[in-house]
């Protein structure tokens, strides 16, 4: 996909100002610094040295030392006055400052003092440079885990050691697992430990508030961290395909889960197609959606959830009988 104009413009201007401060930087290093490919850096150079002030005679143009460039080093010889770093736009400042503030306020307790200090000083520097732009947004991150669990996970991450977890999954089964921790994914709703699980020989996400106990083992972690991924479930063809028809009030289902298809119906309702990996998860979802659920395909998925609900209602009736008159009414 072609790069958007604002991104390219900001990098072109940024590279000139950066190279003005750092004379003679290898193309590879500039690429790493700006997180683009070396080929992109060379394309940017091609653009920069035909750009300049009106007239566009050789002396009007941004220029680089050609001999250095031949040996793969960028040395700016003419900046045409573009030596200043650019101020952040309003939304740009909001985006970074709000994220830093959320980090600082919500996860600082789980950090080492030196790490806390880096976040605090970065926030301070950025706030000084951007003013009160970020006062429009507050972000609360949820780290609803036992402090001992976070401390153990962070220690294991730092020392690259294996971790033994006692974990309760969405189907309410408790298991003990040895994992190589890769990253702590902190979100606004839940936080997760991304890890390689040796019990299932695969990458897994563990919700922090479901980790009952975590202990750092003496063994070093054996696997290298993979790509940090989204905390949402990635469906595949191997999972059962379920179609739900719902009232408009259940619209959040289409927003919150990776649905395969959404079809709007003329009466405000809609139909979604989901891939489901865990029957327990689906049962939980159906129990939640009951008032808005019009129909489901295959129809059998509803029967299990409805039967479970009936068992629970029976249990409440038993509770009432036991309590006798004056007890909880159902």
């Amino acid at each position: 996909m072609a790069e958007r104009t604002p991104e390219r413009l900001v990098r072109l201007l940024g590279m000139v100002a950066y190279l003005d401060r750092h004379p003679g930087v290898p193309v590879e290093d500039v690429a790493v610094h700006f997180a683009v490919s070396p080929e992109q850096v060379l394309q940017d150079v091609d653009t920069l040295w035909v750009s300049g002030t009106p007239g566009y005679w050789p002396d009007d143009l941004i220029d680089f030392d050609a001999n250095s460039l031949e040996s793969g080093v960028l040395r700016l010889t003419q900046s045409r006055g573009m030596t200043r770093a650019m101020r952040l736009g309003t939304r740009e400042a909001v985006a970074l400052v709000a994220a830093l503030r959320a980090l600082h306020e919500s996860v600082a307790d789980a950090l080492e003092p030196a790490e806390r200090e880096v976040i605090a000083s970065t926030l301070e520097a950025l706030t000084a440079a951007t003013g009160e732009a970020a006062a429009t947004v507050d972000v609360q991150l949820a780290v609803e885990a036992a402090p001992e669990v976070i401390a153990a996970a962070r220690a294991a991450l730092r020392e690259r050691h294996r971790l033994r977890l006692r974990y309760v999954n969405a189907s309410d089964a408790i298991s003990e697992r040895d994992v190589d921790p890769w990253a702590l994914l902190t979100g606004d709703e839940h936080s997760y430990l991304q890890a390689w699980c040796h019990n299932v020989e695969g990458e897994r996400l563990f919700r922090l508030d479901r980790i009952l106990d975590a202990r750092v083992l003496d063994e070093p972690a054996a696997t290298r961290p993979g790509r940090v991924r989204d905390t949402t479930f990635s469906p595949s063809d191997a999972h059962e395909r379920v179609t739900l028809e719902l009232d408009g009030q259940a619209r959040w289902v289409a927003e919150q889960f990776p649905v395969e298809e959404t079809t709007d119906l003329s009466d405000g309702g809609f139909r979604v197609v989901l891939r489901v990996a865990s029957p327990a998860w689906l049962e939980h979802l159906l129990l939640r959606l009951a008032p808005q659920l019009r129909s489901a395909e295959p129809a059998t998925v509803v029967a299990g959830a409805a039967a479970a609900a009936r068992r629970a209602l029976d249990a409440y009736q038993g509770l009432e009988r036991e309590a006798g008159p004056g007890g909880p009414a159902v």
Partner: protein
Amino acid sequence: MPLRHVITSARYRALACAVMSDALPPAERLLNLVIALVNTSGRMTKEQIRTSVAGYDREGSTEAFERMFERDKETLRELGVPIVTVHSAAHGDDAGYRVDLDAYALPPMELSAAQLGVLGLAAEFWQDQTLRADAARALTKLRVVGTTPAATDAVVGLAPRLHAAGPALGPLLDATHARQAVEFTYRAASTGEVLHRQVQPWRLIASRGGWYLVGLDTGRGAPRVFRLSRIVGDVAAVGAPGAFEVPPDVDPMAMLLDSQHGTTRLAWLAVVPDRAGALRSRAVEPGDEATPRPAPAGRDLVAVPYDRTGDLADEITGYTDAVLVLGPAELREEVVRRLREAAAMADRGPGAPGGTGG
């Protein structure tokens, strides 16, 4: 072919293109515009810009130039490069333009490798396309004053992520910052009824998987909390910027917590042994608070603090008969109501959607 030759021919080709001003990519036209307006002694008139800055079509119509120049000014303003208009008596009504370097430049600052690493982490925070792009651009600007290479492991293993807020967030951010009123259509949570609202936006809050707008609902003359996911369609700014002040005594976060019935209560649950581990992990010692009644035989008594009845009722309903609510009664009624709806599900309709689509 020697590298020098390749570079040189590329340069000549591009230079010819620039001088002829045909079909220069927008990023390169904007680059030349910024350089021209930073270097101008005093100001450039529109006519000077049109005829001398590379990328503008000097042969095209005035209307086409005006449209392009207005768009370019707007793009640059959004990037934090304000183009100031300079009126000069000597030049009659003809306005001139320049870029004010003080407004253009980041205040003097240096960022260490570790600080740049933390900013890289912060830029990964947003899932919304627009905010992601904003954060990435901000990072590009800050890299100019940063030390190479960024220390990516400045904060070991931490990867914060935030739910996407949807298309309403961008316009609301701008309006909140500009203190400009907004209009939108909003679906009430309780009834599903759709109503038109006009709001003075005070603050945006992301909390527990939801995005909220706190502001003055001008139609009702009272502060309100809106959930962004219930906004239907577009958010439109209305009226002038700077139209209101956020009252100094409001506490938007407290208002949000209030709207979520923010007082923490204790749920008394009778749980089947070894079940509901996630609920158990949040259990507390009840202290002085008296249990409404003992747990029935074969079940454990578990006390769990909560502040949103609906959320906990949803969670407990999912455990069906493994978790029974002993109290408070309000929570038990919510759970029982959900269970009744769920039990009735199987009786509803023909059981499957019609043969169309899906």
